[in-house]
C-alpha cells in the first residue's frame, strides 16, 4: 500500500496562491527600477530604411532606446529547442534582438527604458521610423506561390521554406495504396490557436557587479533562457541567473524558451542603463507577438482492406510557422510521428513542408503538432468506417497499436490501455444508444469519438538536487518550474514515497538556475515523468549513501543494512533518519546528491467521446459532454491529473469550436485581445468526465506517465465526429464557428 503515490494530496503551493502570497514576475519590483515598452511594427512586412530615436531619447525620464543599430547582431532562436536540440538537428537561427526588417504586425522595432511606463510609451511614439513596405502573406500555400515576397533569405530550400521538406515512412506506400479496397483522401485546414496564459510574458533584468546578469522570467525553461541570453549578449553562462520567481502564470508551451522577447529586451536595456528594467507585455502584445500553435493544412490518405485492416497512410502537412522559426523546425515531422503511430499501418509516407508567412511566429503549444495530426487522422478513420459500414469504435479497436507492435518511433510501446480508454469513454457518453440515431428538426444531437497518444519524455541531462538537512528533513531543488501542473507537489510525493518519510518533512524549490542542476525545462509532457525518475534516482543514491555511512560508523557490513520506513537498521544498531542526520552533521558529513532521469520516453494514451447539439438554423454547436479517458500509467496525484485533463479538454473544445486568430488582407490580426479571442469562459463548460485508466508503465516513476498535453489531442476530432453524427456533414476546417457550420448546412442542403 503506497502512502503518498496515488493520493490526491492538496498542492503544496495552494495556500500561497489562495492567499495572494504567491509571487510572479509581474510582482517583482526592485529599487531604482526602470520600465520598458516596445515599439512594434504596424506593417506585416517592411524594410526599415531609417530609424531616428533622438526625439525619444531627449524626453525626460527616458534612459535608453534600443534598436537594431545599437544591439548585438547575433542570430538566435528564442525557443528552448535551439539550445536543447538533439545532436542530429541543426537549430534554425533567424532572429535578432532587433532587425532592420520587420516580418509581422507586432514585430519588435525598438524598445525604451524609462522612469515610468507612461514615459516609455510616449518615447516609443516619438521614434521616427521610415519603412519600405513589402507585400505580405498570411497563408502558407500562398507564401510558396510565385508572387509571394521572400520573408527570409532563401537557405537553399526554396522561397519561404523553413527547411528542406521532411520525408519519412515505412513499407511501400504507393504499392500498398493500390492494394487497398477502400481509401479516403482529404485535406484539413487548421487555425492559429493561442495559448493565452493568464500572466502575460514578462521579465525583470538586473545587471550584477562583475558583469553578471540576473533575470526574472515567466519562462517554462529558465536554464534555456540563461543559455540564450549568454549566447546573444556574450556573457559567460555561469554569470547569468534566471529565476522563475517562483511562480509562472501559465505556459501551455508558449514559453518553452523565452517569453516572447521579454527577457532579451529587458536584459539589453538593463545592460545599457545599468539599472534594473521591467518589461511586462500587455495583453495585446501577448496575443499578437508571442508564439502560437501552428496552423496550416494536412493532407491525409488512409487506405484499408475489406476486413477493415489499415494498410496505407500518408500525412503531408504544409504548416504555417509565421515570421520566425521558433519550434517550427521539428513540427512537420511531428505531424507524422504522432499521427502515424496510433494505429498499426504497415505502409506509411510523409512529405512535409513548413513555411514562413507574415504572421506571428508559431512555436510550441500544448499537444505540439498532435492535435493537428489527429484531427487529420481521425477524419480519415471515420471516413473509412463510413465507407465500410463499420462502427467507428469497432474499426478503431481493430487497428490500434498494442504492446510490442512495430511502429515508426525511436522507442518501444511498452504499455497501452487505449482499448480500455475507448471502452470507458464510449460507455460514459452512451455510445451504444446514441450513435447513429436519426436526427430531425432544429436541434440535432450526435456523439463522436477520437483517440490519440503522446509522449512523456525523459532526459539524462536534467536532474534534481537533494540534501538531507541536520534535522532529517529534506531539501530538494529542480530547474523545472511549476507553471501550474503541480510538480512541486507531485515530486515531493514521489520523494516521500521513495524514502518513506512524511511529505511535511520535504521542501522543494524550483526554477532558479543558480540553485538547481541543469534542466531541460517544462515541456514535452516530461516534468513529472522525467524529474520523477530523477527523484527516485536521487532517493536511491541517498539511501545507499546513508547505509554506507551507517555501516562505516557502526563497523558493520553495508550489505547487511536495511532502510525501512525512515529507519536505518543494522544487525545490532538502528538509527532513525533524524538521528543519523544529526550524528553526521556533528561529524562534518553531509548528504547531498543529484538524481538523474534517463534517456527514455513512453506513450500515454487517450480517448475522448463527445456529445453535441447542433442548431440547424444558426449553426451553433453546443457541446453537451466530453468523456475523457486517459491512460496515464499510475496517477501519482489523481486530483491533479483530473485537473490536467479538464483544463486540456476545455482548450480542445476551444480549438474545435471557437479559437482562432484571423488576419485581414494586410496580415493584421483581428483577435488581439481576450474580448476578441473566443477562449471558453465558465459559462461555456459542458459536463467533463475525466476518467483515469491506470496502466503500470514499466519505465515510469512508480509506473507513471505524463498527461499534460494529452488532454487537448483528441477533443476536436471527437467533437467534429459528433457533429457529423448529428448533421451528416463532415467538417474539414477548424474551428466550427456558427458561420462555418451554417455554411456547411447550406451547402449540404443545396447539394441534396
Amino acid at each position, binding site marked *: 500500500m503506497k502512502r503518498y503515490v496515488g493520493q490526491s494530496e492538496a498542492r503544496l503551493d495552494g495556500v500561497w496562491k489562495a492567499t495572494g502570497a504567491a509571487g510572479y514576475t509581474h510582482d517583482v519590483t526592485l529599487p531604482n527600477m526602470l520600465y520598458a515598452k516596445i515599439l512594434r511594427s504596424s506593417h506585416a512586412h517592411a524594410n526599415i530604411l531609417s530609424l531616428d530615436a533622438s526625439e525619444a531619447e531627449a524626453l525626460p525620464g527616458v534612459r535608453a532606446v534600443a534598436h537594431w543599430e545599437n544591439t548585438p547582431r547575433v542570430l538566435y532562436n528564442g525557443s528552448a529547442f535551439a539550445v536543447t536540440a538533439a545532436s542530429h538537428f541543426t537549430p534554425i537561427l533567424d532572429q535578432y534582438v532587433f532587425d532592420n526588417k520587420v516580418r509581422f504586425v507586432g514585430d519588435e522595432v525598438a524598445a525604451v527604458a524609462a522612469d515610468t511606463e507612461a514615459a516609455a510609451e510616449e518615447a516609443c511614439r516619438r521614434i521616427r521610423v521610415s519603412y519600405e513596405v513589402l507585400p505580405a502573406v498570411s497563408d502558407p500555400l500562398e507564401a510558396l506561390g510565385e508572387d509571394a515576397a521572400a520573408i527570409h533569405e532563401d537557405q537553399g530550400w526554396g522561397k519561404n521554406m523553413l527547411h528542406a521538406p521532411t520525408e519519412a515512412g515505412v513499407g511501400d506506400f504507393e504499392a500498398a495504396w493500390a492494394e487497398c479496397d477502400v481509401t479516403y483522401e482529404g485535406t484539413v485546414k487548421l487555425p492559429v490557436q493561442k495559448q493565452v496564459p493568464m500572466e502575460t510574458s514578462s521579465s525583470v533584468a538586473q545587471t550584477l557587479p562583475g558583469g553578471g546578469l540576473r533575470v526574472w522570467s515567466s519562462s517554462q525553461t529558465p536554464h534555456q533562457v540563461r543559455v540564450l541570453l549568454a549566447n546573444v549578449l556574450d556573457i559567460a553562462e555561469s554569470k547569468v541567473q534566471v529565476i522563475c520567481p517562483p511562480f509562472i502564470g501559465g505556459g501551455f508551451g508558449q514559453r518553452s524558451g523565452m517569453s516572447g522577447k521579454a527577457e532579451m529586451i529587458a536584459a539589453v536595456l538593463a545592460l545599457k542603463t545599468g539599472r534594473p528594467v521591467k518589461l511586462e507585455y500587455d495583453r495585446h502584445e501577448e496575443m499578437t507577438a508571442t508564439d502560437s500553435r501552428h496552423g496550416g493544412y494536412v493532407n491525409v490518405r488512409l487506405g484499408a482492406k475489406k476486413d477493415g485492416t489499415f494498410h496505407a497512410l500518408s500525412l503531408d502537412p504544409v504548416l504555417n510557422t509565421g515570421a520566425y522559426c521558433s519550434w517550427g523546425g521539428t513540427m512537420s515531422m511531428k505531424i507524422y510521428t504522432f499521427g502515424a503511430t496510433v494505429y498499426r499501418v504497415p505502409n506509411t509516407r510523409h512529405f512535409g513542408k513548413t513555411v514562413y508567412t507574415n504572421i506571428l511566429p508559431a512555436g510550441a503549444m500544448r499537444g505540439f503538432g498532435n492535435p493537428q495530426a489527429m484531427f487529420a487522422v481521425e477524419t480519415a478513420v471515420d471516413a473509412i468506417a463510413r465507407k465500410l459500414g463499420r462502427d467507428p469504435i469497432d474499426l478503431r479497436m481493430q487497428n490500434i497499436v498494442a504492446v510490442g507492435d512495430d511502429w515508426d518511433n525511436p522507442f518501444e510501446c511498452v504499455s497501452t490501455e487505449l482499448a480500455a480508454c475507448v471502452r470507458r469513454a464510449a460507455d460514459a457518453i452512451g455510445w451504444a444508444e446514441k450513435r447513429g440515431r436519426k436526427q430531425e428538426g432544429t436541434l440535432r444531437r450526435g456523439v463522436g469519438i477520437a483517440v490519440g497518444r503522446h509522449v512523456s519524455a525523459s532526459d539524462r541531462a536534467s536532474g534534481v538536487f537533494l540534501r538531507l538537512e541536520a534535522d532529517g528533513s529534506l531539501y530538494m531543488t529542480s530547474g523545472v518550474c511549476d507553471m501550474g501542473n503541480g510538480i512541486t507537489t507531485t515530486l515531493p510525493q514521489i520523494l516521500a514515497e521513495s524514502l518513506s518519510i512524511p511529505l511535511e518533512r520535504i521542501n522543494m524549490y524550483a526554477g532558479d538556475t543558480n540553485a538547481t542542476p541543469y534542466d531541460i525545462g517544462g515541456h514535452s509532457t516530461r516534468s513529472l515523468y522525467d524529474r520523477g525518475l530523477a527523484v527516485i534516482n536521487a532517493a536511491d543514491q541517498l539511501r545507499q549513501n546513508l547505509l554506507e555511512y551507517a555501516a562505516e560508523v557502526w563497523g558493520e557490513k553495508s550489505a547487511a543494512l536495511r532502510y525501512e520506513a525512515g529507519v536505518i537498521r543494522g544487525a545490532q544498531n538502528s538509527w532513525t533518519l533524524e538521528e543519523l542526520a544529526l550524528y553526521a552533521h556533528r561529524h562534518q558529513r553531509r548528504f547531498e546528491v543529484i538524481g538523474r532521469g534517463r534517456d527514455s520516453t513512453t506513450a500515454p494514451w487517450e480517448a475522448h467521446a463527445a456529445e453535441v447539439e447542433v442548431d440547424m438554423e*444558426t449553426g451553433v454547436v453546443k457541446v453537451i459532454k466530453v468523456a475523457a479517458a486517459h491512460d496515464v500509467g499510475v496517477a501519482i496525484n489523481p486530483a491533479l491529473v483530473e485537473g490536467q485533463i479538464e483544463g486540456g479538454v476545455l482548450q480542445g473544445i476551444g480549438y474545435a469550436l471557437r479559437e482562432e486568430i484571423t488576419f485581414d488582407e494586410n496580415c493584421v490580426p483581428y483577435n488581439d485581445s*481576450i474580448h476578441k479571442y*473566443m477562449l471558453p*469562459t465558465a459559462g461555456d463548460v459542458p459536463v467533463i468526465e475525466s476518467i483515469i485508466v491506470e496502466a503500470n508503465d514499466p519505465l515510469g516513476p512508480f509506473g507513471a506517465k505524463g498527461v499534460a498535453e494529452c488532454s487537448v489531442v483528441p477533443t476536436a476530432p471527437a467533437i467534429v465526429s459528433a457533429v457529423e453524427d448529428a448533421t451528416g456533414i463532415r467538417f474539414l476546417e477548424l474551428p466550427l464557428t456558427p*458561420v462555418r457550420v451554417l455554411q456547411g448546412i447550406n451547402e449540404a442542403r443545396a447539394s441534396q
Partner: protein
Amino acid sequence: MKYVMANSGADAVDILRRANGDGRVIAGGTDLVLDIAGGKYAPSVLVDISAAGDMREIVPREQCIAIGGSVTHSQAARSEVILREAPALAEACAAVGSLQIRNVATLAGNVVNAQPAADAAVALSALGATCVVAGEEGDRILPMERMYEGFGKSAVDSARELVREIRVPRRKKGEASAFIRLEMRKALALPMLNVAAAARVEDGVVVWARISMAPVGVGPVRAVAAEEGLVGFSLEEEVILRAAEKALEQANPRSNPLRGTRAYRMQVLPVLVARALRAVRTQLEKEEEETR
C-alpha cells in the same frame, strides 16, 4: 484631469456647465476608461454620476418604470419590477459582458455609448422606452429611435448633458416582451445578433408590435415592416415566420471578422426574430392560463 463626484443629476449638469465643454460624464466607465487611455477623449473634468443620489434607483411609477441614469445592468437584471414587466430588458442586461462589468456599467451608458450591438438599448427600443436628457436648458425627452445620430454617435453630448432617467412603459395585461441573443460564448462577448420583441394582443389579435434588432445598422433598428405585418393577426407560426422574413427589409448588417458575415447575419436574423416572437407568444399564453 480633475475627478469630481456629483451629488445629483443637477449637480452633474452644473459641473459640466462650468467646465464649458471640457468636462465629461463618467458613469460605470467601462468604455470611457479605455477611450481616455486610448486618447479618444481628454477631458479636463470627469464628472462621476455613479453616486448621484437621485439617479440610483429603479422606481415604478403609474405610467412607467423610471430607471435612474446611474442604474447598473446588475440592478436592472435583478429588479423585480423589470423581471415582471419588462423581461426583455432583464435578459438583455444579464447578457452584457460579465458580472464585474454589469456591476458598474449603466443602462444609460449603454445607450449613450451608441455602439451598434448594445444589448440593453435593443431591449429598451422594443419596449418603447424614452430617455430624459438633462442639460443646461433643462430636460428634453427623446424616444430611443432619436438617441442615435450615427455609428457610435449619440444624440447626447456627454460634455454637456446626461441621461437622467430612462422610462419604460408599465406592462399592461395582454403585453409581453422577449430578448434573444446569439453570441460566440456565454460571457465577455458582444452579440453576433440580438433581437428584442414586444407586442400587445387583444382578443387573440396583435394590436401593436415592436421588434428591435442589432447590429444591423445605426443603434437598435426597428423592424417596422415586420411589426406592421403582425398587426391584426394572431401570433401563429405562419404569421411569425412571415413577419420574421420581413425583418430583413430594415436590416443592413456589416460583416465582422469574428461575429458573423453579412450573409450569415441576413440568414439568421429572421430565425432570431421568430424565436423572440415565439417567446412573446409563450408568455402571453402563460398569462392567459394564469388568469383563467
